[in-house]
């Protein structure tokens, strides 16, 4: 447990360094800071739920790595649909809560645009990462439950920060 934990911690420090690069911008717009935990968390959760479902389908023998497989495609579609449902709420929620606490400097539509664009990008990346890691685990003969979920969750955490910061640079 401990060596894995320390490696994962180091990966997360890497995503912290990305945040640190944009610290001045994040401190100027508290709404962006408010988006950080929820974006990281939702990205990690989308990835870990997809990974858990694919692992189960794999163990049940109903998963094949073929775009025509209904579990593979269905779960991928659901991940994108979940992101499109949740991220508008994320953006609006972050704006409303920051406005209530007296610090919103960005227009609500800007915050919602940033949240939805990041969410959509993250959903697509979560699908690519999860399917790739599940496939690699399967080829190497590893149990997807042991390997895929921690790797996917932490990779999606890091991608959450990177995609959010990149989207902010494009939109602002």
């Amino acid at each position, binding site marked *: 447990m401990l060596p894995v934990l*320390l490696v994962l911690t180091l990966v997360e420090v890497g995503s912290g360094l990305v945040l640190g690069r944009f610290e001045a911008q994040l*401190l100027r717009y508290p709404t962006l800071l408010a988006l950080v935990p929820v974006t990281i968390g939702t990205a*990690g*959760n989308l990835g870990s739920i997809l990974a858990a479902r694919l692992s189960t389908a794999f163990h049940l023998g109903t998963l094949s790595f073929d775009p025509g497989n209904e579990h593979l495609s269905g779960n991928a579609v659901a991940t994108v649909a979940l992101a499109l449902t949740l991220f508008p709420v994320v953006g609006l929620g972050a704006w409303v809560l920051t406005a209530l606490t007296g610090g919103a400097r960005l227009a609500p539509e800007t915050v919602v645009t940033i949240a939805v664009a990041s969410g959509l990008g993250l959903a697509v990346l979560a699908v690519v990462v999860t399917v790739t890691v599940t496939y690699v685990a399967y080829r190497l003969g590893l149990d997807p439950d042991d390997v895929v979920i921690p790797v996917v969750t932490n990779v999606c955490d890091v991608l959450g920060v990177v995609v959010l910061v990149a989207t902010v640079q494009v939109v602002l």
Partner: protein
Amino acid sequence: MTVRDAAREAYREALPALSASLVGGLLAGVVLGGMRGELRAVPGLLVLVPALLATRGNVYGSLGARISTALHQGLVEPRVGAGDERLRAAVAAALANGLLASMFAAVAAFTILTSLGDPVAPLPVLVAIAVLAGSFSGVALSAVVVTAVFAGYRRGRDPDTLVGPLVTTTGDVFGVLFLLGAVRLVLFVGGVV
């Protein structure tokens, strides 16, 4: 089953847990947004935030999974007052792992930022904040995880499905709140850094 059915089922099953952790994440974000003064006062603190939040999920999520498995196997009684040795050992191990990972994150962030020539608070300040935040949120999260898993199990719910959403929701909120508490305490004790 068609792709459409599979997608609908996956969507329906995931939405409640994701919505719960969304609320937790938003609350944590508001606290973080209100922490700008502390983030400015302690350079390098923002770099630590993702690692400290993820540690909560990694460590206490795994504690919850272990306790659920032990309950299913009948190795642990679902009573907090029982003073079960296995339960105490699992909680102690989680606390130790959480503290070690937090300290490691502080040292790693300090070393990397120093080598990049970026501004960073003194190492003892970052380590003190990481250790205090890790201890406070560790004790709170252990209590929440153990209580909720036991309560869920006694009511006939599968604790495995409770642990994930619970830890991601409360982990973010407690993680950021106790981080704020730890920073204020360290800044207060150490004077203005």
